[in-house]
Every structure is written in structure tokens, then in C-alpha cells.
């Protein structure tokens, strides 16, 4: 199955992927808040997160994530379009957003515009 591999160490936080995604899904429109990929930032670092479905179960097994010398709240990297945070939900309609790999066969527009190699389409 194809999936998008994320290497956060390569991400520069330029958010070109967000622009690409919204342009591809809403005709002629750019709005990062309507994108299905968002770049979370925390201090010095950036973490691209791709939208996925929301299931209650994920929250019950919530953990803290340790990267380097910092501890992060898992919610910050969670891909669920969950009601707790304003990500991956169409602001006007409330419809949850989910990555669709930009069609069949997959040709994700975010990967195409990501110039640093932080996003990569892999087959496994």
C-alpha cells in the first residue's frame, strides 16, 4: 500500500504542502486551515501531520512523546480530525478532512511541492 513517509528532521516549516493540498482539494483556493496536511511546530522543530480518521480509542492510550531532550503532548502530533483541536475540520461545514492521496493512483500534491524530502511517497 502506498503511504507518505514523513521525515520531520528535514522539514523546514515552509508549509508549502499545506498550500498545495488546499489548492488541490478546493478549486482555486488556498487556505492552510482547509488542508489535509498541517505542519505542527514546537519551538525549533516542525512536524508535518497528515489527516486521518478520528477514533476514541486513540485517546485512551494517549502517551507522551520524547524527542531529543523534550517531551511533547501526543495530541500535538495526532492525525485524527478530533473535536478537541481545530485541525482537519472544515471550518464552515464541520466535515472531518482526511488525506485521499490526491486520487487514484496516488499522486500527493504535498509530496510534489515538498522540496526538502521531508515528505516521500513510499510503497510497502
Amino acid at each position, binding site marked *: 500500500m502506498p503511504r507518505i513517509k514523513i521525515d520531520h528532521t528535514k522539514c523546514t516549516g515552509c508549509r*508549502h504542502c499545506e498550500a498545495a493540498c488546499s*489548492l488541490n482539494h478546493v478549486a482555486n483556493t*488556498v487556505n492552510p486551515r482547509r488542508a489535509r496536511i498541517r505542519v505542527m511546530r514546537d519551538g525549533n522543530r516542525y512536524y508535518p501531520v497528515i489527516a486521518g480518521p478520528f477514533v476514541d480509542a486513540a485517546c485512551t492510550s494517549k502517551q507522551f512523546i520524547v524527542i531529543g531532550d523534550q517531551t511533547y503532548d501526543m495530541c500535538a502530533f495526532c492525525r485524527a480530525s478530533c473535536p478537541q483541536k481545530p485541525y482537519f475540520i472544515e471550518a464552515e461545514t464541520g466535515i472531518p478532512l482526511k488525506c485521499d492521496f490526491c486520487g487514484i493512483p496516488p499522486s500527493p500534491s504535498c509530496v510534489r511541492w515538498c522540496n526538502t524530502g521531508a515528505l516521500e511517497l513510499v510503497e510497502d
Partner: protein
Amino acid sequence: MNGWIGRCLRVNLTDGKHQIEKLDTDLLELYLGGRGLGVKVFTDEVDPNVDPLSPENKLIFCSGPLVGTGAITGASCNVITKSSLSGGLACAKMRGHFGAELKFAGFDMVIIEGQSELPVILSIIDDKVKLVPGLEYWGRSTAETEELFKKNLGDQWMARETYLVSIGPAGEKLLPLANLVNDRFLSVGGAGIGAVMGSKNLKAVAVKGQHSLQVADGSRFVQVINTLINKLNSAPLTSQSMSQWGTTFLVGLCYQKGILPRNNFRSTSQPLKNIGTEALNSAFALRGRGCFACPIACIKKADVKYSAFEGKGMVPTYLAIGTLGFNCGISDLSAIGMMSMLCGEMGLDPVATGGNFATLMELVEKKAVTPEELKIDISFGNADSMIEAIRLISTKKGYAKRLGQGGMAISESFNMPEIFMGVKGLSLAPFDPRAIQGMGLHFATCNYGPHHLYGYTFIDELLNVHENLDPLETQGKASLVKRYQDTSAVVDSLGLCNWPLMGLKFNNYVPMVNSCLGTNYKADDLLSIGERIWNIERIFNMKAGFNMGHDTLPERFFKEPIPDGPAEGQISHVKEMLPEYYQLRGWSEQGEPLQEKLQALGLEE
């Protein structure tokens, strides 16, 4: 509207009221946005002779039409005001994400008028425009301000998406060297702007929003951007040098050509071993950071390894290394990193600050003043005391008051104005104009002082990207300078970054502009818009008191040949090139725009 949001926010700090206005579409056609539109509105509304620090001066933030649309490097927002350092127009480019977020917050332009009685922060978050009491932020560094503001928002998700531009203690104290700092550590390169914002008692502007931007022809736009990204990737400078080291890669190149100045422009050979990019790699753990939609990501973050400072910093750029470092005789990269970091925290402009200290150091060397009188051992190569002094001047306490008035004021107060290496009151960017003639002409004639961001002739003169020019040659440089100056005006007005031009031709931008805005511009149409902008800036500056006499360089560059290094023996030939430049611009011999030219540009009064 395509590209533009079409709305402008006008905030009056005196009575705390604001109103939302529609942008005039005719003006957008003539001036595009960003720098062009901002300058047009500013010059129409503000008297050229206004005191920069008075409530009558205005401060304009203006994003370009391509900002936030995903157009490559469409990220910049320009800040326009009358500078408290030069007394002329100031226009500084803000990188990072603030510009794009301003558009998502629903505005192309924010005009700030008047003067608040107490410190405030202008918050434009989710369509709510508020003036937040700023007393608890006053006196804090730019980084602390941002942190505290976000904490006070209460909602961590909202905080993550909010972007801030603020002044540091230097701006609050109305120091002429002060500038703005956005996204935590990006300095907005324009001295004197921070003092204007400080005089308005405005500590910061915060933006966030959910507005959508429209693009005229989305599918074509996406295609164009795909090709542009490929082009950038096949050009060595943008894909490797800039991506890997940022502008710092210029240090080595400029050194080899004798362009990198040392000790207040009195030498170009550095007795230094560790100035190359390898030294940079070993001094800092580099990590790229990009402005909105930038495939290059030239901004480098790092941990500054310096005993006196434990924090996160940004790798010094070419500008910081040149002005705070070598031109002050300092070659320790970690100390330079520390200084540039401090400048960011305090809200000081690195170029103006470096120039300020280089002047002071030469005064000390020439014995016009002793370190005892200054109460601090300022001398070439003394990094520790310079770090100390940077801290001191931004608090403006006691004797430190005298140290931070700007290079020109300091040199004049000791009756040695010839020691100040600057034009129109602003310090020179670190390019020795004797070793790179075109840049010298640009420095002399630029509306915003001697800064390479308003005319990047070094792309051809030094890097030989589009043309293979000899930096020492004067032939053809006048037209090169004009072309690059007009280009910079257009690029800034569209809201794009200049650095892709190290890999792309200006013409490559045109399809991107047209598919985004739904226009039919040709490259020449855009360049003539640039020329129009350059001319209105010039006219404003002339009304503010600048004339042909200001289009020159410090005497040192005409009289003293470079004493050493690869460009040994060179002097500047600006005076010979100036008449040709005026002629190409369609200006009189006194440098005044002629009636025919104004008519052709649609500017006749």
C-alpha cells in the same frame, strides 16, 4: 479578488478606533501591493517633513498579492514608514510567516496611525481586531514578548498558529538603531523602524485567521510552480549553497574577491583561517527553516555555542557576519552568532548596529575618544566588550546613551563625520564598493540607503548567474543597477523573495504572477511598475530633503585605495557612473525626475 484579499485595516492608536477599508483596484493595477502599494499610500497620506517619531507619522504593513497563495517564496510583508535614522522613507522586508498569516487574517494592509498613551499590542485574531494592554510586555525582549503573548492567549492551538512581529527594548527606548523582529528571531532589516513603532507605544502586532485566498487559474498555477521548483533544483546556488548555508556562503566568495570589508572598511584581507562554510558547519548545528512556501529555506537555525549564552539562536547571516563581525575586526563565529542573537532579542538592526560600533572603534583607534571616557573598552576585535555594549545600548542606561545614536550622529559629535561609513545616515551593508562597482553605484543611489536587498547586482557581478560581469568594471553597470533596482521594487511589491533570482530569471516569475492574479503582464510591464515605484520613492525622499548631494559614498572610497587583498589599489568610480545612471532613469543632471519620465510613468502631478 485573485491574490489580493482586497481589504485594508486602519487603526488609530490615539483614540483606539479602527476601520476596515476596501482597497482601490486602480491602485493595485499601478502598484501591485506590498512595497509599491504601501509606499503609494504612505506618500499620499504623510507629509514628507513630518517628525518620524511624532503621532503624525504612520506605520504601514503591507503584504503582496502573491503572498500566501503558495507562489514560491510568496511570504514577505513590507513595513513602510519614515525612518527615524535617515529621515527618508524606510521600507523593510519581513520574512517568515507573518506576511502570509496577515492575509489569512483577512487583510492585505494594516495602516497604523497616531500614538497610544499606554503600551498596547494590536491583535488581529480570527476576525477580531483588538488593542490588548501591553504594559506587562514592555521592557521584555522580542522572544519573551512572543512567548508571553501566546501563553496569555490561553488556547495552545490558537497560540501555535499565531504569528507576531514586535519591538524589543531598543525600540521602546526610541533608539535609532532599532528595528522589528518577527517569528521570534527574524530581524526586519530596516533601521529606525523600531523606534517609530516604539514612539507609537505599539509593542507588537499579532495575526491569525482563517480567510481563504483565491487564485485565478489554479491548475496552470500549480503547473508553473512545479516547473519553477524544478528550475530552482537544477541551479547550483539555490539548490545547494543557499539551501545548505543560507546567505553565509557569500562570506568565502566575497573574501576571495576582496569585497568583504574589515575594520570599518579599511582593509579587505582578513588574517583569518576560520571563515568558510566548513567553519560554519562546525560552529553550529545547522537546521534549515523556510519562509512560507519557500523551497530554498535559507534561514538557518542553530544552537549558539557560547559560554555566556544558553539559548536557541539563528546562524548569523552574511549581513551579520560582515557588519557585526569582520567589519568590527571580529572573526569568532560563535561570538558573532551571539551578537546577532542579542540584536534579535533587543530588537536592533544588525547592519546599523555593526556600523555604529565600527565607527566608534575607529574613533577610539584615532584617539578621538578614549575607552575610559566611553567607560567600555570598545576596540576592533574585542568581541566581549561589544557583546556587553549591545546589551547596554538597548537599555540606554547612563553612559550607554552615547554609544547607540547611530554611526553618523556619533562621528559628528566627535567632529569626524568622514569616519562614518554610510549613505543617507544608514550604514553600509558589508560590500566594499571599491571592489564591486555596480553595488557601489547602487549604494549611492538607493532610496533606502546602502543596502543590497534593494538592488542585488552581486548576483551578476559576483556570482555571475545571468551575466558574467567583472566586479571592478564600470562599463554597463549603470543599466545593471537600474534593472536590479526596478526588479527589487517589483519583487517586493509582489511579496516574493529576492533569492530565487540566484537561480531563476525574472521572466520566469511572469507566468506565476499571471496565473495567480489572472492578469496579462509581460516582464517589461512589471519592470515599468517597478520603475514607477522607484520614482515615487525618490520624489518623496527629495521632498524630505535629499538631493543629488546625497547620492554619493563616503569620501574614503574615492580617496583611499583598498590597501591590501585581491582588489588592492581600487577606488570607487561612482562619480563617473552617476550621470549615465541619471540619464537612464530619465532624471535631470541634478537627479530630479524629469517631466517626460513622470508622464510616461503616469505620475505627473
